[in-house]
């Protein structure tokens, strides 16, 4: 008889098993189903029907098409420029906030920690808030949208780059240093090539995000196709709205396809580490592509009329007479609680519904295609517009805002889950199918088992993103900090604005810390 391993870790009988874990967030559907009837006012089902019908009958008006294409051009240009600036700044920031770099260069690590904490502030403020704040300061100009994307994105890239740098094995670096190599040369040689694939993979993801952010900024009047989307929705011109949406969808899918192709071609790691990749094998090609991008960016900046000097000219601001007692008297507890509730609800919905839908719909003959379409629409459709659409049939409030946020994030998570499921290989699932198991049970046991922890870890990160995004649904009266923030912005209540931004930033940083812990626990398990 084979010798026994000592009885250890009977974990499986105490904790929910992996496939169940992935579906746990979907339990939020139960309380939601209980409260939803009270939120429905049902007045606008006809409008929803007209909206849905318009999807197959978009307007072909040449004037509209020309205007939509111009708007799309602006959105893409803003996204590309904001992304490129953020990547450049983020790389510098990431290197400067890396403990490994500081230890090698100066023999101490505290400056890295200090810079990381400093970079947490721009990161914690959503690009929409940056956009609206900059708009107040320097007026409406193309550079505002670019900078609104570049500032928080650069801080996000910096964090990822420094995390990647600090996670790399230091043995090659120490070997080079011991052989007498100078610190900068040793860092570049030992860590540079290993860092590149991760950076470019994350950069590709940020480019996709930048397109969504540029669209969102447009919804709030910062130019581009988003403005057209909002105007056509508010004036109920659904056929015109769908013309814009189909154009945007085409560009978004093209961009995502390109990023996926390059990720595969350059051997970069997959999105949540499920498809392990080697170090980029086509360095020269990658370098040439980067160099070729520079003149393109320059031309885009010229076409867009970006003038960095104009950003230095600050507009005359109204006199600042702070009324701090009034600020303190705001219902902070209720606002923070409702913001957190909104975040949790939206995150649980997005994280839970993606695997549930995959399980229910993917085995249908056209199921995967249907899901890919639904998830593309979710990613495409900015949450404020979803919220406006939902207002046709739902009352304004937290539930409506949560549904809007959840739909958008469902698009992101659903796509990731599908990609991860494909990358993970289906050995166990195929084995179960061969043993006569039905397609759904085989998917549930065979594939979800391996995916659940990494997916939920990504879900924890997404919850952190959703907390930051709650501000964008403030306009539907979600009763959280976002609503008040937008009111403070429009009424020039600078004291309230400062306090709200500070609370929002603190909350986001706390959320980030919490989601980090959850993520590490999930992955460690």
């Amino acid at each position, binding site marked *: 008889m084979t010798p026994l391993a000592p009885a250890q870790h009977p974990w499986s009988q105490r904790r929910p098993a992996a496939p169940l874990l992935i579906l746990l967030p979907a339990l939020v559907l139960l309380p939601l189903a209980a409260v939803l009837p009270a939120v429905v006012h049902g007045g606008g089902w006809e409008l929803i029907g007209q909206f849905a019908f318009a999807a197959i009958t978009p307007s072909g008006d040449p004037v509209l098409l020309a205007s939509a294409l111009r708007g799309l051009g602006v959105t893409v240009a803003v996204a590309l420029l904001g992304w490129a600036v953020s990547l450049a700044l983020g790389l510098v920031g990431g290197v400067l906030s890396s403990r490994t770099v500081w230890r090698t260069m100066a023999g101490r690590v505290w400056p890295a920690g200090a810079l990381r904490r400093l970079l947490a502030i721009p990161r914690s403020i959503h690009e929409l808030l940056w956009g609206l704040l900059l708009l107040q300061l320097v007026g409406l100009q193309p550079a505002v949208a670019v900078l609104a994307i570049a500032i928080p994105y650069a801080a996000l890239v910096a964090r990822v780059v420094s995390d990647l740098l600090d996670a790399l094995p230091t043995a090659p670096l120490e070997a080079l240093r011991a052989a007498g190599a100078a610190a900068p040369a040793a860092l570049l040689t030992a860590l540079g090539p290993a860092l590149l694939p991760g950076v470019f993979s994350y950069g590709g993801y940020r480019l996709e995000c930048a397109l969504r952010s540029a669209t969102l900024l447009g919804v709030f009047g910062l130019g581009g196709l988003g403005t057209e989307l909002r105007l056509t929705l508010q004036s109920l011109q659904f056929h015109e709205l769908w013309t814009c949406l189909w154009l945007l969808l085409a560009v978004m899918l093209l961009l995502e396809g390109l990023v996926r192709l390059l990720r595969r071609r350059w051997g970069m790691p997959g999105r949540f580490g499920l498809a392990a990749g080697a170090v980029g094998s086509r360095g020269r090609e990658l370098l040439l592509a980067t160099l070729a991008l520079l003149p393109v960016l320059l031309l885009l900046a010229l076409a867009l009329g970006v003038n960095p000097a104009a950003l230095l000219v600050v507009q005359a601001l109204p006199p600042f007479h702070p009324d701090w007692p009034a600020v303190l008297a705001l219902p902070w507890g209720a606002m923070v609680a409702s913001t957190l509730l909104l975040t949790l609800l939206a995150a649980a919905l997005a994280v839970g519904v993606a695997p549930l839908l995959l399980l229910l719909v993917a085995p249908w003959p056209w199921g995967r295609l249907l899901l890919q379409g639904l998830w593309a629409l979710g990613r495409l459709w900015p949450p404020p517009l979803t919220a406006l659409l939902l207002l046709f049939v739902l009352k304004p409030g937290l539930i409506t805002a949560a549904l809007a946020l959840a739909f958008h994030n469902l698009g992101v998570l659903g796509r990731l889950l599908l990609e991860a499921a494909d990358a993970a290989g289906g050995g166990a699932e195929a084995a179960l199918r*061969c043993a006569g198991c039905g397609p759904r049970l085989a998917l549930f046991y065979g594939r979800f088992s391996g995916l659940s922890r990494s997916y939920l870890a990504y879900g924890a990160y997404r919850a952190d993103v959703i907390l930051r995004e709650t501000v964008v649904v403030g306009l539907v009266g979600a009763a959280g900090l976002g609503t008040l923030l937008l009111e403070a912005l429009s009424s020039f209540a600078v004291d309230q604005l400062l306090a709200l931004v500070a609370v929002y930033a603190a909350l986001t940083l706390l959320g980030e810390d919490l989601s980090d812990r959850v993520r590490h626990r999930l992955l460690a398990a």
Partner: protein
Amino acid sequence: MTRSGSPSGPGSGSPSLVLELRDVTVPGRGADRLAGVSLQLRAGERVALLGASGAGKSTLLAVANGLLQPSGGELFWEGAPPARSQRLRQRQRARIGTLWQDLRLIEELSVQQNLNAARLAEWGWPRALRNLLQPLETAANAAALRQVDLDPALLPQSVTALSGGQRQRLAIARLLRQQPTLLLADEPLAHLDPRLAAELLTLLLRQATAPRALLLSLHRPDLVSGFDRVLALRAGRLVLDAPPAALDAALIQSLYGAESMPALAEPR
């Protein structure tokens, strides 16, 4: 399920047919992966499948367990062709157990849950979900473990805590829990040390008694003595269907070429 498809179904006197392939062809790039392969496997038969790498052994097993649809020819499971209805086909496939070379255990689940995964074809969702929350059918699982010389105390453990040999045995125990009539094994002895390979082979041969049949592909001609028949493939064609005694050095040489030499050197 009709049994009229096969001329040698029950009632013909000899043990019933568990698997039958008639003139099965699977196209490949250039040459066919399987070219006109016909074979029969009866209850209680233990058949070894030999052939050099790329000869078509895995393809044949993939056709036999329904993973691969042949482009030509016919396939019969227990005398019936694969059903058109998904539900009926699932029932047919539930009676085919495959031992995969990479085992395909579900790493995130416990030994108990892995064993019960073999019963999913019979269970509905409620039971499948309960299996993830509490131990189910512990007595049957313990018996399956004992059959493969594993201690039932392993049941609550994570699969990742098992040694390589224990994992191999667990995969066989999972097959037993499925209660198949057709056992297919795709090179289960590859990459195992000689002692473990011999132990596992004995274990598999012991399980293959009527009404069950075993079709096992392997790379080592020196291990075929315990089988009733030996089939051999070369370039996708069945070139041998004979008792093990018929296998001589010249035949092995013709099957494997230079590849066979290490196997021949080992004691039988």
